[in-house]
């Protein structure tokens, strides 16, 4: 199919040869699983099990909380050892609420697990509901709850489902292997999603460095004329949702918008596989395929791992380190996160564990920017990274924002090519974090101001009410007095003099006429 040009981008060495030839293997069940309650963007799930409880595979461990959240299920049968805190799968290494499960070795599915004989007979919202209940999130790393995206139909006019099989990050081969080995299942999941979205155009986009996956998917898709396989040039960041859609349709997603604004929804191939399992077999998302690779790993490969297995378990299965790694990463080398330790557990969004050698990381002492503009040419978003970095360094964050900081997708293309080895992405992450913090502070301040203003208004109202009550009492007292005097006078004087007497009374005279009338 016809492809459109995208600007910028880089050609990193893909290093896929390390793991691409390795078929997906099952990771042997570790002795313990640590299953974090937050494995998605949005609110963390709420625990639904207690210490000591026996659970079957696929049983609910935690319930989703709110509109953007996902439930968590037991990756195998066993006993809950506790709900405590454990280091998160995150660069910070901070602890999060985690269910620790001791597998009983039986790996027995819950009796309640049941698939749907014909998913295409279901109403679209029913499919989305099942996907939500299965705890499926975007498995390309973004971990956005997939059901929310399947429901976009209600708010957008959609025409196309794009399946992101680009896998443009170097080293990663898990989607490649999944598409090669389980193309039928992936295509089935894709068709179910298309049904939920109500679209009749489906494009499966795969980069040209995966000819086997392209062939397998094309074969599996041949029965459905709506599906087209797009063969993408190998170019990073082709897998960026908005750029992928541009390459396929020629249209740009408006800034600050969603691809749904131009009628396209993008899902990942592994997500499609999870949807297939959820609908056909009733299985929630409890495992995923992960690439373990990098020059420091003895035997790189692709593993199907139960969620909650530790990075260490994966590395040990791959023969440990061939040499001391310089960097341990979750995800690809371009946008992945450094891992603080091998103890952290695997989560729904982790597609790779890389142990890279010093030579692979190729980090140098940063030099001053020589304004060579390679970063400008590499940026797929049309930004001028050197200027944004200069403003950030000078502390002028508003300046950085006015240059487009918030349009930066953090792809790292700029830093990848910078001959001065300036950590550009680090600057942008810092600036974005700082802006977010400022936004929160500002929100807090306006909120405080609003509350203070409300309080002042309330106090003012109370005071006003008091004053009025006081005045009223005074007036009443005066009126009473006047009436009494008048009555007394009337007793001795001729009628008519009472009015004069009232006017003469000091209290009554001080009141303006209108108020008197009111009173």
């Amino acid at each position, binding site marked *: 199919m016809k492809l459109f040009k995208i600007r910028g981008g880089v050609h990193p060495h893909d290093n896929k040869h390390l793991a691409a030839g390795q078929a997906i293997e099952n990771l042997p069940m570790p002795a313990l699983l640590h299953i974090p309650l937050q494995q998605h963007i949005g609110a963390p799930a709420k625990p639904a099990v207690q210490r000591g409880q026996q659970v079957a595979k696929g049983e609910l461990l935690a319930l989703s909380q709110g509109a953007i959240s996902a439930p968590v299920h037991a990756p195998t049968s066993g006993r809950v050892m506790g709900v405590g805190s454990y280091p998160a799968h995150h660069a910070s290494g901070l602890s999060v609420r985690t269910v620790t499960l001791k597998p009983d070795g039986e790996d027995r599915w819950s009796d309640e697990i049941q698939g749907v004989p014909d998913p295409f007979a279901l109403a679209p919202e029913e499919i989305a509901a099942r996907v939500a209940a299965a705890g499926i999130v975007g498995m390309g790393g973004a971990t956005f709850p997939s059901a929310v995206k399947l429901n976009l139909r209600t708010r957008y006019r959609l025409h196309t489902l794009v399946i992101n099989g680009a896998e443009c990050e170097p080293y990663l081969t898990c989607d490649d292997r999944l598409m090669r080995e389980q193309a039928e299942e992936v295509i089935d999941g894709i068709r179910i999603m298309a049904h939920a979205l109500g679209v009749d155009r489906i494009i499966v986009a795969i980069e040209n460095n995966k000819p086997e996956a392209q062939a397998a998917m094309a074969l599996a898709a041949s029965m459905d004329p709506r599906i087209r396989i797009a063969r993408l040039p190998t170019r990073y960041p082709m897998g960026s949702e*908005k750029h992928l859609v541009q390459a396929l349709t020629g249209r740009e997603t*408006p800034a600050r918008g969603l691809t749904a604004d131009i009628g396209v929804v993008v899902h990942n191939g592994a997500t499609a596989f999870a949807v297939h399992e959820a609908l056909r077999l009733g299985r929630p998302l409890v495992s995923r395929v992960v690439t373990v690779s990098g020059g420091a790993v003895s035997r790189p490969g692709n593993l199907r791992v139960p969620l909650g297995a530790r990075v260490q378990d994966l590395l040990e299965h791959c023969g440990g380190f061939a040499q001391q790694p310089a960097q341990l990463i979750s995800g690809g080398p371009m946008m992945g996160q450094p891992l603080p330790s091998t103890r952290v557990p695997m989560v729904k969004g982790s597609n790779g564990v890389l142990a890279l050698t010093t030579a692979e990381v190729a980090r140098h002492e940063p030099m001053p920017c020589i304004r060579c503009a390679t970063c400008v040419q590499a940026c797929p978003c049309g930004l001028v990274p050197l200027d944004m970095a200069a403003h950030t360094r000078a502390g002028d964050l508003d300046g950085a924002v006015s240059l487009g900081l918030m349009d930066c997708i953090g792809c790292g293309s700029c830093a990848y090519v910078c001959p001065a080895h300036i950590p550009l992405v680090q600057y942008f992450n810092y600036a974005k974090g700082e802006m977010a913090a400022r936004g929160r502070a500002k929100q807090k301040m306006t909120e405080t101001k609003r509350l203070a203003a409300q309080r002042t208004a309330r106090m003012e109202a109370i005071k006003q009410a008091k004053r009025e009550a006081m005045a009223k009492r005074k007036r009443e007292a005066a009126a009473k007095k006047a009436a009494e005097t008048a009555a007394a006078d009337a007793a001795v004087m001729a009628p008519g003099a009472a009015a004069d007497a009232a006017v003469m009374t000091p209290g009554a005279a001080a009141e303006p006429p209108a108020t008197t009338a009111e009173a």
Partner: protein
Amino acid sequence: MQIETPASSAGPFAHERSSIQRTMALVMLALLPATLFGFWQFGWPAIFLFFATIGTALLAESACLKLAGKPQRLYLLDGSALLAAWLLAVSLPPWAPWWIGAIGAVIAIVVAKHVFGGLGQNLFNPAMVARVALLISFPLEMTNYVQPMPLFSADAPGLMQSVGISLGQPGFDAVSGATLLSHVRTELSQGMSLSEIIPGIAHLVSGAVGTIAGSMGETSALLILLGGLFLLAKRVITWHTPVAMIGSLAILATLMNLYDPEQYAGALYHIVSGATLLVAFFIATDPVTSPVSKMGQILFGAGCGVLVYVIRTWAGYPEGVAFAILLMNACTPMIDHYIRPRIYGRDRRGTPIEYADNAEMRK
């Protein structure tokens, strides 16, 4: 087998493996053929001048780094001082005394580079600043060109004589020669017409090959062009600046030449003579002092081309490129401020683009 790795750094955790040193080295490699040809053409005095310039530049750089408290090894070896001095040296009259090169190097490194804040901070191209400063301060030495006398040829000065030339002692009878540009300029001012001054294309050919009087490394347009193409192929530079500069110069020259062929030389003359090509490929593309966007680079290059033509044709200096570059360098911040790439998902003015599809559904 548990490892704790520092979780400080952000990605990407891979790099193209380019570096400033590598970039500078590639530029020097591209300059090498023309430089070696210059050595051969102009002999020992040129070689002495070249090394005096570069040696002084490195000393000056080292001193400045010390004063600024920057790490010596990292910065001295970044190649930037070496390259600036190299570019200056090849633009000097080949038999200029050594101290011309040394003074030029000090101006380039201390005044044009470090006073502005060092690597990457300078507004003007150091080599061109030095060249202009020398031209104004030492007009005699800076316009004293000699005819090529290839190394080891019969008339070439010997080693000792060369040392004398380098020290500025008279004693060797050099055949001084005018560069093509100054020759044409003088003759034109004496009322000659172009067809009398440049009989046939012989002059142009010798300008292209480089067998005429000129600066040490500028004479061979062909070798410079070769270096430029190498840089393009290695993606050290992009086509935008050189093409815009040569293009605008050529268009202007052609138009004026059509208007009056006896007064205004054609495009080819302007391209092969003087420092046009050296500047187009090596100086105007200097990253530090030229714009960063492609549009900006085109504008910058075109501005250089126009200014070169204007200065050469109507101003007092036959060799206009250095002035043209400095003037355009001054415009770079403004060009960069106004000319930016279009941001993804926005129009040129920065407003998010809007499609009809879902606009009404988004309320």
